[in-house]
């Protein structure tokens, strides 16, 4: 059976109904365990107890970006292969990604207050997250403005493609505009700078947890969208009478 079979809404509903409880349970366990483990870590010698914010900040930031990537992939699948479920999945992912972006921004801002002495700094990393948030807003607004679902799926798909190109360009532009204060990706940087193991493992667990949480919410919201579409289709038939 080809993987595209799952793009059939009926089959999608049936298989996700079985899968969903497991994903929800795994997400709940990983997020709770990861955050509790994170809170129990000792304070950092430089940042004090504020390192504990990292266990929210980094996974949220990660999922904010991955959420957009997922939307991009789903949009491409819809535009090329016309699988309706993937269009709805893209729609469902947007609010989750937007909330993740807000969490990253807010925790970053709260973290910045003691570390840099300011709530907000026009640092390129932070700025590009703000821009990402704007792209999420535009995408969600376009979905909600168009009544015809076919056109809405197509138009938001095109917006997602063009938006991705320009979001990437903005990232470079912002880097050019201001060199920042924010630390680099410390999970991969030079060995001397490597994050202490004390923080690394709970962080991994939190990342996994946020990923599972994203997945669970994505499944739930996609199922909602499918149900709404089906209700609308039945209503349209009824109105025909």
């Amino acid at each position, binding site marked *: 059976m080809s993987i595209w079979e799952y793009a059939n809404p009926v089959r999608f509903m049936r298989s996700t109904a079985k899968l969903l409880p497991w994903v929800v349970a795994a997400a709940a366990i990983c997020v709770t365990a990861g*955050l509790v483990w994170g*809170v*129990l870590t*000792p*304070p950092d010698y430089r940042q*004090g*107890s*504020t390192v*504990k*914010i990292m266990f*929210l*900040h980094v996974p*949220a930031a990660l999922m904010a970006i991955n959420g957009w990537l997922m939307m991009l992939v789903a949009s491409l699948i819809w535009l090329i292969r016309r699988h309706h479920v993937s269009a709805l999945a893209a729609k469902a992912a947007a*609010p*989750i990604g937007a*909330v993740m972006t*807000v*969490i990253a921004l*807010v*925790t970053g801002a*709260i*973290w910045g*207050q*003691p570390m840099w002495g300011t709530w907000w700094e026009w640092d390129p990393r932070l700025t590009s997250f703000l821009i990402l948030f704007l792209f999420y807003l535009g995408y969600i607004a376009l979905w909600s403005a168009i009544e015809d679902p076919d056109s809405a799926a197509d138009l938001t798909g095109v917006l997602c493609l063009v938006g991705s190109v320009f979001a990437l360009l903005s990232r470079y532009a912002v880097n050019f505009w201001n060199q920042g204060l924010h630390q680099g990706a410390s999970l991969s940087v030079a060995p001397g700078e490597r994050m202490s193991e004390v923080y690394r493992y709970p962080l991994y667990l939190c990342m996994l947890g946020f990923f599972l*949480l994203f997945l669970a*919410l994505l499944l*739930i*919201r996609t*199922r*909602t969208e499918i*149900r*709404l579409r*089906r*209700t609308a289709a*039945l*209503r349209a038939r*009824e109105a025909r009478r």
Partner: protein
Amino acid sequence: MIELGKYAGTVLLAYGVSLALLIALIWHSVARNARARDELEAQEGRRDAR
């Protein structure tokens, strides 16, 4: 007990806001899903009734 030191307020604020946002998102998703399911069932019930 967990040691938060002088940054207790900061950390608690970050956790509070983030968890509130997450819970709101989860609640919204679940409630909307339940509403959609009810509406669909009502609609299908009406169709089957005919």
